[in-house]
């Protein structure tokens, strides 16, 4: 389990130590190739899941796959599938809840639940709801789906962590369109006010929302400038470059929350979906599904997961 070996005593580890520790070990030894491989697996699961479900959100799940893979399999996120509510765990909030498939895929690969459950996505009775439900799935930190709410929840977790003098980190993944929600800026202001340097967000900056390019629908301008003006530390990375992501994840930001603006391509990994807004909430079927699967295929033996 990535992350488990990083459990050291609370007192001896601050943000800097942690990041040093990770840099030395390369985060539980997970190499970049391994993470890339895991990202491919996530994409494979995503396409299979939504294809089977007949609905869902492939575009924003694919754009987040490298981000999520680096977080879960890069030794960054300290979680324990055998003890999902472990009090010292790092918290990950999928604020862009419609990307549930990528979260479910990561949780399954981490061992929170069997990989074959993935194919029940969105079916009656499945724990895998269209949007994540924390009452149904271990490892889902909080239920999301109504955009703009996740960062506030992450702020609450980070405040609690500070109050309890715990050294866990709180992570949240936001969409760029989602940043149009005012609640995101309320939360951003509060995070800076309370100096939450145990809070990090990643913005999946894929430049698309449902109705088209973010710039055209409702421009968010420079998200970096905005978060900086709201008192945050900001990093920009290529959201499909595992190395850059890991490097950013390991940075600390004393006294400030950290926003990582990850430049991504919506639908990444399936050529015909890349950069096409229509694939936000549409799923490939029939021949298209086969083509998509062919692009993200993994070896048969891998398919069964761990």
């Amino acid at each position, binding site marked *: 389990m990535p992350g488990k070996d990083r459990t050291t005593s609370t007192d001896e580890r601050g943000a800097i130590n942690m990041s040093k520790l990770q840099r030395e070990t390369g985060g539980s030894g997970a190499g970049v190739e391994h993470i890339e491989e895991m990202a491919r697996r996530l994409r494979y699961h995503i396409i299979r899941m939504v294809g089977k479900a007949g*609905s*869902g959100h492939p575009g924003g799940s694919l754009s987040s796959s490298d981000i999520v893979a680096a977080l879960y399999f890069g030794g960054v996120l300290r979680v324990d599938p055998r003890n999902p509510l472990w009090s010292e765990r790092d918290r990950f909030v999928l604020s862009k809840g419609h990307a549930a498939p990528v979260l479910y895929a990561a949780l399954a690969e981490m061992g929170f639940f069997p990989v074959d459950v993935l194919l029940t996505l969105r079916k009656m009775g499945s724990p895998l709801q*269209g*949007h994540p439900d924390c009452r149904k799935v271990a490892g889902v930190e909080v239920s*999301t789906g109504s955009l703009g709410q996740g960062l506030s929840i992450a702020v609450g977790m980070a405040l609690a962590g500070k109050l309890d003098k715990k050294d866990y980190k709180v992570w949240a993944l936001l969409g760029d369109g989602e940043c149009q*929600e*005012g609640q995101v800026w309320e939360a951003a202001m509060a995070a800076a006010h309370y100096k939450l340097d145990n809070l990090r967000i990643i913005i999946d900056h894929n430049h698309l929302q*449902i*109705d088209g390019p973010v710039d055209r629908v*409702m421009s968010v301008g420079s998200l970096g400038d905005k978060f900086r003006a709201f008192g945050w530390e900001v990093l920009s990375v290529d959201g499909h470059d595992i190395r850059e992501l890991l490097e950013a994840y390991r940075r600390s930001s004393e006294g400030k929350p950290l926003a990582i603006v990850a430049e991504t391509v919506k639908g990444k990994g399936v050529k015909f979906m890349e950069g096409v807004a229509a694939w936000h909430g549409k799923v490939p079927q029939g021949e298209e599904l086969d083509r998509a699967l062919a692009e993200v295929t993994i070896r048969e033996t891998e398919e069964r997961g761990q």
Partner: protein
Amino acid sequence: MKAARDAYGEVLVELGKENVRIVVLDADLSSSTKTAVFGKAFPDRFFNMGIAEANMMGVAAGMARAGKIPFVSTFAVFATGRTYDQIRQSIAYTGFNVKIVATHGGLTVGADGASHQALEDIALMRVLPGMTVIVPSDAEETKLAVRAAAAHTGPVYIRLGREAVPQVFPAGSSFEIGKGNVLLPDVSREDVIAADPSSRRFDVSFIACGVMVKECLDAASLLEAQGLRCAVAGFASVKPFDADLCMALAKGSRLVVAAEEHSVIGGLGGAVCECLSGSHPSRVLRIGVEDRFGESGPARELLEAYGLTADSVARRVRAVLDTNQTTV
């Protein structure tokens, strides 16, 4: 079979041609709410406000104050709960001429699950002073309701579903805010109201809105086959509430059934109970979602699982009629 939202897109374009004051706002869901159809026809009068519903309501209020007739659309969850205070303060309290037309109301949203299934929106909008609340049953009634909303001065909330639905609203019937429609038997609303209240004519009267009108009609068929006399009224106009028709139905029936794709709390069922308790206490069976959240699944399976299909409705009616004293 046609989705109410498709009808909405079409009638919006018609209205756009007829009245230049009509403007349309959406919050990044225009392909789903079908306001994109208007946006294509009248790009200058279509405003995508992005994923910022609260602001969208305020912007609509400002446009209305400047003489426009804004139609504002997004999913019902976000069109009501996400923006309740904005609607309350900037639209209902001011009385501004804003039309909120929400799609994806109810369980039949389907696989997106609880976070996207509005089951409280009727209750939320109904409690707002001055708000008109309409829940059409099909594409045809949607067109009429949207037209009625445009013609009405003041705030209106219209709740539509996601799925294609069969036609139940009688072709050629008129739609009037504040009035229900008697769909079964084939008599007019006025006839039902004028009927001698002492002659109990129905075993059960259904008062329904949205997709539940169809389910109630089907339930009525099942019950009539069992020898029970049924009335079915479409109460698309949840507010103003057609107290006259409701009371007449109650007076002429052993049991009143209120059915909606919504929580059994505070919606159409609440309106029926409040109305009757005040003037003609009657037994009311409320059919709806029993105070819980929805979940992911196919629309039809969800209706079944939550007891909202004709079968289930008929069974519950039968059980009440068989085992209980039913009315006064």
